[in-house]
């Protein structure tokens, strides 16, 4: 049987549904616990929670759409079923998936995305892509509770130092990604700078105008405008 037929047969869709169901249940449960504790002990109302949800949804739209565009590479090279199975629960981004499928193909002596990719390459990709990523979920299962203890010990319960850790680690991570793209120059540099300026301006504007609702849209607008300005200066494709 052609490997492309097997790669889109019901078995792989079912595997995807099982994994996605676990991820969905986990998120739904944690959402419920967080909502309950914030309403009961944090002084937040149902409508406050809904504001946070709306902000997260608006922000998620751009990255999820971008993911779907990149996903098409996986749909075309392997199959929609494989794409759903790997991306449904989304362990690793699409970029990671493409790297792992390429690594598996090399292991099988083939090249991903070319006619040399066969059943042997597909079976290796299925094994390698799935099994190699369990380090993240197993690590989370066994070590998450110790991360909090470590952080508390380092900060010794000082709320100002805890805030410094949060802000500095976020600026450190995003400083790394921003600097990496800025180094490439051209449109990517423009996208980073435009995204940063527009986002900072919109968040500040929301405070100046006392319109907190603008913050729900700020990141989403900054992402799209940053992308669009970069395209105007250096047309993509």
């Amino acid at each position, binding site marked *: 049987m052609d490997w492309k037929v097997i790669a889109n047969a019901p*078995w792989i869709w079912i595997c995807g549904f099982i*994994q*996605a169901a*676990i*991820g969905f249940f*986990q*998120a739904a*449960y*944690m959402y419920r*616990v*967080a909502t309950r*504790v*914030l309403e*009961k002990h944090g002084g937040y109302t149902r*409508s*406050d929670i809904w504001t*946070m949800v709306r*902000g*997260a949804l608006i*922000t*998620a739209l751009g*990255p999820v759409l971008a*993911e779907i*565009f990149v996903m098409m590479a996986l749909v075309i090279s392997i199959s929609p079923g494989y794409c759903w199975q790997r991306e*449904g*629960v*989304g*362990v690793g981004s699409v970029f990671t998936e493409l790297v*792992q499928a390429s690594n598996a193909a090399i*292991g099988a002596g083939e090249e991903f995305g070319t006619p040399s990719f066969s059943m042997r390459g597909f079976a*290796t990709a299925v094994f390698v892509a799935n099994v190699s990523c369990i*380090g993240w*979920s197993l690590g989370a*299962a066994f*070590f*998450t509770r110790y*991360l909090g203890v470590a952080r508390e010990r380092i900060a010794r319960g000082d709320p*100002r*130092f805890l*805030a*410094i850790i*949060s*802000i500095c*680690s*976020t600026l*450190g991570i*995003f*400083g*790394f990604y*921003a*600097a990496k793209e800025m*180094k490439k120059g051209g449109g990517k540099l423009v996208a*980073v700078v435009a995204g940063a300026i527009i986002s*900072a301006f919109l*968040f500040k504007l929301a405070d100046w105008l006392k319109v907190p609702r603008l913050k729900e849209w*700020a*990141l989403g607008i900054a992402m799209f405008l940053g*992308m669009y300005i970069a*395209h105007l200066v250096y047309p*993509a494709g």
Partner: protein
Amino acid sequence: MAPEKEEFVDIEPKVFEKEYLEPIHRVGFWTCLAVSLAMFLPPLLLYLIYGVAAPWAAIGAGMALALTYAVPFFFIEPISYYPIYGDAGNYMSMTTGNVSNLRLPCAAVAQDVAGVKLGTRKGAAIACIGIAVSVMFGIICVLFGSIFGGWVTAQFPSWLTEAFKVYLLPAIWGAVFGEFALMGPIYALPALIIAGIPLLLGWKAYFTIPIAVFGTILFGWALYRWRKIAPPE
């Protein structure tokens, strides 16, 4: 919604431990374990239904390559991201991936909208809401994307598709950086410099990310310790 008032009151530690952390750890542990086990299903079913198994030599070579790429991130990502998204965020992010481009921006915007102080218990619960929403929304969209993705992407003009592929990620990095630069302007430029130097030297990401994160924390700590400088209240 009204941002947090001047007098910030966090959730009681004992209440938070019992009503939030305990159930989060319990369900987080079992769901992460379950998803790890479920990763063995596809190769197992491929073998049981079609009798197709990858040769061990190919698995060995493929795994060696894949793990070379992935193993450093098994450690670096949770340690680096945890201060931002907390326990629930770690369970969900390590299960569902797409942390820097999707989970963290959603957590950050939820916290900003709520006007909550970072590093607090309320902040962790709000980040949990942002991340949980992004996970549920993402799963639904990926399902539709897998089925109708070809049709959906064909509806967009080609320049937009290309712009999404090339420029959206840099714009996200910039946008989140801009948001947090407002919260701690004094750390923004040093963060870029600390990350930029190893990048210019061409060091690998698994060296550069910890340097960027812990270097910036160290800088923040030094300012706090010796100059009493902390983020604006």
